[in-house]
């Protein structure tokens, strides 16, 4: 067995040694994380510093690696759904959707129409809660404490609404192969209807207090410029790509479910910097509200789970499929291969945060350390999703 330990140096571990091999003379190797507030969990970044400037940076992953892809091979497809709520805990609904969507595609299962609407509503609500949490936490990174209190106040109402049908507040495993677990009842629908005008009344205040604030603008404008070509080379999607002017959203470009029925815009920004990504996420909150509003209006009566829906022991027919959805962080893709056996043969999870973070090394080069942290936050990472 290969041991990747470098015995020449004593300080640091394998990754520090590996990183230090390419270091220039007179520079400082600095370790950020994995227990650092601005790494939002357990991300670790090793940087080579020349004074205050970052010469090189390398994210080190794996501190939250749980091998979901192996778990998919030792459980039946239906038993794997709870794992999907734990990959990206901030936008669990999108992961739920990506996985059941891939399995439904192989098996050719049609979802009842009402279930499609329920999926859209819950997924978009979850997207808003994810963006709100990102907003609060990002400002916390930048030194503003108050906004996260407001964000959590709004988010609380939203979680209360989602708790009614799902029974959970964070790690939802609500989708089922062939529909969803439970219908939205009047209590839940009432909460959602009340939430839309509430959040709309708050957004102008956030704009005045935070978005237009000169301190914030000085902090996030013109840092972390990402060119569209860079997004292609690294496979960056979601608000990171849209913040660089790429008009790409899976809901529009590869429509799934019933997204083609709704009228909504894809916000983009030509700024390409951290501010561009900030603007895109803030604008997306309003677009999600628009989708929810239309979905509530158009939602038909009916079942939310297809008749004869697969039981937990159900075997997925042989075949392969790739299903992508738009998560809060970008394109979530699930590639499923089945040989018709008890468990899935192979499940590959494409995490948008993984690809978005991979460009950090290139983008942070030459910036001040404090800006590198602001760039890191603007990528909106969720570590469990990156490590899977």
């Amino acid at each position, binding site marked *: *067995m*290969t*041991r*990747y*330990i470098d015995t020449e140096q004593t300080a640091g571990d*394998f*990754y520090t040694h*590996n990183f230090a091999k390419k270091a220039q003379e007179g520079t400082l190797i600095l370790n950020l994380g994995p227990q650092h507030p601005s790494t939002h969990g357990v991300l670790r970044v090793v940087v080579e510093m020349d004074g205050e400037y970052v010469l090189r940076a*390398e994210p080190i*992953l*794996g501190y939250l*690696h749980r*091998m979901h*892809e*192996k778990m998919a*091979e030792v459980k039946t497809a239906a038993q794997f759904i709870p794992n999907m709520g734990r990959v990206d805990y901030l936008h669990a609904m999108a992961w739920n959707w990506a996985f059941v969507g*891939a399995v439904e*595609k*192989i*098996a*050719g299962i049609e979802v009842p129409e009402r279930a499609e609407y329920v999926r859209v509503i819950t997924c978009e609500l979850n997207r808003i809660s994810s963006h709100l949490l990102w907003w609060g936490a990002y400002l916390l990174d930048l030194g503003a404490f108050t906004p996260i209190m407001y964000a959590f106040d709004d988010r609380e109402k939203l979680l209360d609404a989602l708790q009614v049908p799902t029974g959970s507040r964070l790690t939802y495993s609500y989708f089922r192969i062939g529909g969803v677990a439970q219908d939205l009842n009047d209590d839940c629908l009432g909460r959602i209807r009340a939430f839309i005008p509430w959040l709309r009344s708050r957004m102008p205040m956030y704009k005045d207090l935070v978005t237009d604030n000169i301190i914030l603008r000085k902090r996030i404008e013109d840092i972390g410029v990402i060119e*569209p070509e860079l*997004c*292609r*080379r*690294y*496979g*960056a*999607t979601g608000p990171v*790509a849209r913040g660089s002017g*790429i*008009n790409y959203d899976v809901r529009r*470009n*590869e429509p799934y479910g019933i997204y083609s029925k709704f009228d909504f815009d894809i916000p983009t920004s030509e700024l390409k910097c951290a501010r561009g990504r900030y603007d895109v996420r803030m604008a997306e909150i309003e677009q999600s509200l628009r989708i929810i509003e239309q979905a509530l209006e158009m939602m038909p009566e009916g079942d939310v789970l297809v008749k004869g829906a697969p039981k937990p022991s159900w075997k997925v*027919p*042989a*075949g*392969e*499929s*790739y*299903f992508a959805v738009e998560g809060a962080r970008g*394109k979530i*893709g699930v*590639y499923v*291969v*089945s*040989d*018709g*056996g008890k468990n899935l*043969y*192979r499940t*590959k999870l*494409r995490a948008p945060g*993984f*690809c978005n973070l*991979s*460009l950090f090394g*290139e983008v942070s080069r030459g910036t001040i350390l404090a800006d590198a942290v602001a760039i890191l936050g603007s990528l909106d990472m969720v570590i469990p999703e990156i*490590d*899977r």
Partner: protein
Amino acid sequence: MDALLKGLKLDYLARGDFAKTGQAWVAFLPGASLVRASERLLKADYYIEDVCAVDCVEGYVVVYHFDHFEKPGRVTLKVIVPHAAPNVPSIAHLFDGAEWHERETRDFHGVQFIGNPNFVPLLIDPEMADCFPLRKEEKSRSSAGKIMAPGEVVFCDPAFTLFVADSPAEAAGEGAK
């Protein structure tokens, strides 16, 4: 796509059924053509979605997914490498994002990507990084010809027999229902 990949040595090229498999084009190609195929995809403004491997009877099937921001339609490149010598050339110098995907595939399956600029373990602890958790035991491996959708064939090298070995394999994509 056939125009894009023209002149490259391919084993198999097929149109996929996007509604059923999520793949617009599927190509099996030898490792030697992979870099040039990726280069052309990069020039045609494709972006990399992911890289992964599937452990099959024939060997490790290394799967590359690409997509396009303006003209959606997933392109899947597949390279079959033998279990005994799982070596593939790296495409990280073209698609920088592939560096991490390749390292992850090394962690899970032990596939070696020759030329990856930083080929160290990514997700698994370096001290136990040679456990390759997604490798399968010989008896539980399935044939790639049976589990992968053949699609609508555009080109097939006479020497490439993955989908012609026996007739049930042909129907694996469709007949599964």
